[in-house]
């Protein structure tokens, strides 16, 4: 029904989706899985008309189609339900469904009819609710179903519905409800693309599953033909290139750098226990949504720690603010480089000294000369490739931005470096450089805790790996125990 032929999308020099060819039959639920940055969201944005591909063809019923806007896609029968983005929260449920096609009678909107219509549609999806309620008063699950109802109502010729992470913030009853609805729609002949990182759900609902990794499609499988563990390996990478095997994992220096014991917040996350020793690189593994980023945020004083204790260098910490973490010589290279890391307008020099300056306080300004010295030193030692240190950081490539961020934190001479997906969205060359840099820092005595999406990379670069699943730390592997199969097994087990 829908066919993608070598679909490619690049932003500048970064290829985000690389020659993806895929077929989706009618009346099938096709899941798309892959880690952060695998290219799933870019791919579905191209399918829904929000982004135009650089190369490749999309054909619908063997007709090539060219989508210039989501509205055009809708007219052709392709509708996407993105999280939160396609409904107006401040208007009523009924209005969200009928907006743009209000039922009119005698020149005015017939609200009675609109509400009836909306109620009937939602009843078909198995919910009864007062459709006059404002959408933002409703739970996420209801909003999800309202969006689906709108998509169904909008196009009588709806052929393909794309659901982006529809289950990420709803409970298991609601998931079951949604799945019943989806199966019913499928049986009516609708094709559904289901994007999710909950593998149990993916296996439960899908006819076919496609896995993406680093912008490429790594495989499409019948859901019955592939096991969960195998799928995780596909998603996370299996080929063991082992350029720099962590020369058989010595450290375990016995000198604790960071000790988190049973930290968490009731009902949200935890308990999580992690211990990182001096000169040790510890990987924090887990699938998307397993709570790994939350752990990083807690350890850096960004989120409240409800229970448990954190010690750095044997001292118990009260992590009330990021400054408290910084003063305890903890540093965090965040996941979302653009929003949380880089000051795009400001120069590379300013980006590098920002952390030092924040710690020094506003009264003790670092002199311009000293700033330049520091910036130059790191630009050189980290091989940051740029025209000059006064270049706005926003103009650099992802890899160089990441190095600038690393430089910001290394300038603070931290004892503990938290890295949340340090090689995400970074090209291969820079990736290797960053990996080596981290290994070298560890040799010099730094304690590093890394979240990574690439399981193979994690096996290669960590001395120890702590595995998280369902917001808890569930296992710890060291030395010979670390292997891709084993990690994939633990991560996939009982996940959902």
């Amino acid at each position, binding site marked *: 029904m829908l066919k993608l032929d070598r679909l490619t999308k690049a932003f500048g020099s970064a290829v985000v989706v690389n020659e993806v060819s895929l077929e989706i039959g009618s009346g099938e639920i096709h899941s798309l899985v892959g880690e952060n940055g695998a290219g799933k969201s870019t791919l579905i944005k191209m399918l829904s008309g929000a982004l135009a591909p650089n190369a490749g063809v999309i054909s619908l019923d063997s007709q090539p189609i060219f989508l210039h806007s*989501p*509205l055009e896609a*809708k007219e052709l029968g392709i509708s996407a339900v993105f999280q939160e*983005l*396609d*409904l*107006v*929260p*401040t*208007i009523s449920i009924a*209005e969200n469904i009928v*907006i*743009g096609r*209000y039922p009119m009678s005698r020149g*005015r*909107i017939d*609200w009675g009819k609109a509400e009836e219509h909306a109620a009937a549609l939602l009843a078909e999806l*198995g*919910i009864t*609710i007062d459709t006059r*309620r404002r959408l*933002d*008063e*409703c*739970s996420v*699950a*209801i909003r999800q*179903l309202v969006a689906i109802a*709108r998509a169904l109502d909008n196009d009588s010729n709806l052929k393909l519905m794309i659901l982006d992470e529809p289950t990420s913030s709803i409970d298991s*009853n*609601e998931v079951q*409800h*949604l799945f019943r609805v989806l199966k019913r729609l499928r049986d009516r002949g609708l094709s559904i693309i289901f994007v999710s990182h909950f593998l149990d759900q993916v296996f439960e609902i899908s006819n076919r599953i496609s896995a993406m990794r680093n912008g490429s499609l790594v495989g499409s499988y019948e859901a019955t033909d592939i096991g969960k563990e195998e799928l995780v390996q596909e998603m996370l990478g299996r080929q063991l290139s082992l350029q720099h095997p962590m020369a058989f994992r010595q450290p375990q220096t016995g000198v604790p750098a960071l000790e988190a014991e049973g930290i968490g917040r009731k009902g949200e996350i935890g308990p999580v226990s992690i211990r990182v020793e001096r000169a040790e690189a510890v990987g924090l593994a887990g699938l998307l949504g397993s709570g790994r980023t939350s752990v990083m945020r807690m350890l850096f004083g960004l989120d409240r720690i409800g229970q448990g204790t954190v010690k750095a260098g044997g001292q118990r910490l009260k992590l009330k603010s990021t400054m408290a973490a910084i003063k305890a010589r903890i540093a965090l290279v965040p996941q979302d480089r653009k929003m949380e890391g880089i000051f795009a307008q400001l120069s590379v020099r300013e980006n590098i000294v920002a952390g030092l300056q924040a710690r020094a306080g506003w009264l003790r300004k670092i002199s311009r000369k000293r700033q330049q010295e520091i910036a130059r030193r790191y630009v050189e030692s980290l091989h940051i490739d740029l025209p000059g240190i006064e270049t706005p950081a926003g103009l650099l490539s992802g890899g160089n931005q990441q190095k600038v961020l690393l430089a910001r934190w290394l300038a603070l001479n931290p004892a503990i470096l938290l890295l949340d997906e340090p090689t995400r969205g970074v090209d291969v060359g820079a990736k290797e450089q960053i990996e080596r840099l981290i290994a070298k820092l560890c040799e010099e005595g730094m304690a590093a805790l890394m979240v990574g999406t690439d399981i193979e990379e994690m096996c290669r670069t960590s001395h120890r790996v702590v595995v998280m699943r369902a917001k808890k730390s569930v296992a710890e592997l060291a030395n010979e125990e670390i292997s891709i199969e084993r990690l994939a097994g633990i991560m996939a087990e009982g996940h959902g």
Partner: protein
Amino acid sequence: MKPIWATIATLLALIGFCGIRYPHFLTAAVFVDLVRDNAILGIAAVGMTFAIQSGGIDLSVGAVVGFTSIVIAKLTSNLHLTGIAAGAIALVLGALFGCLQGWFIARFRLPPFLVTLAGMFLARGAAFVISMESISIEDRPLVWMASQTYFLPFLLLLLFGTAIYFSLCVPAGRYVFAVGGSRESSRLMGVPVARVEVMVYAISGFCSALAGVATTIYTSAGNSTAGTLLELDAIAATVIGGTLLTGGVGSLLGTFFGVMILGVIQTAITFEGTLNSWWSKIVTGILLLVFILIQKGMPEARRSGSVN
């Protein structure tokens, strides 16, 4: 609790307080005066409500009032047009002026406050260029309207009625809420966002011009400084009426009550005799603060409902 209930409660409390304190307060004459004296503010507030509901703001309101007022005076006194024709021309000019502001906002994605700030300079400057002097109105129809006690209240209620109908029962009126609630989602749902924005500022321009006409009638004079700082009271009335300054939520009925609240405060201060007029500004400021804080505390607390 919906914000409009807070508005109604405040209004009733104020009226109750005044009724107890001032024996002659609860009379029909006082209430007719209340509506009549606040008609200009009310008319301007209708346009402001649309602007704020769409997620914007219109700072040019007061300046357009001054511009309209002087234009009408000039047209009737120098060009000997009848007041009706002059008024009609002024209304068209106001709407066109609003269109232009809306076009700048939609086309260049400029912040509404900046564009309407420029609009304020432009309209006030143009008014001053036309005449710095106050010109008295001798046109028959306008003088007749000025003599009718119920004319301005009638105009106000008519406008509110039409606007409420438009805002509740006409698709274009509904789009204002959608755009204010989420510009991006509205676009994805097929709402013509740019046209809605232009329309909103056209409505606001039209209402400001109508407020200008009302001012001219009310004062029987054209004055280029008329309406100075009217936009602030209009914003205050809108916010006190429960319209969210971030857009998307609100009601014209609430705005009407907001205008009445400001009016009652004013009346109470007059009744009090010893209190001075500036207290109304201070009280308005305090009410504004209170209602902004109420709005701030609201949305998070209200998530409920489940599938089953």
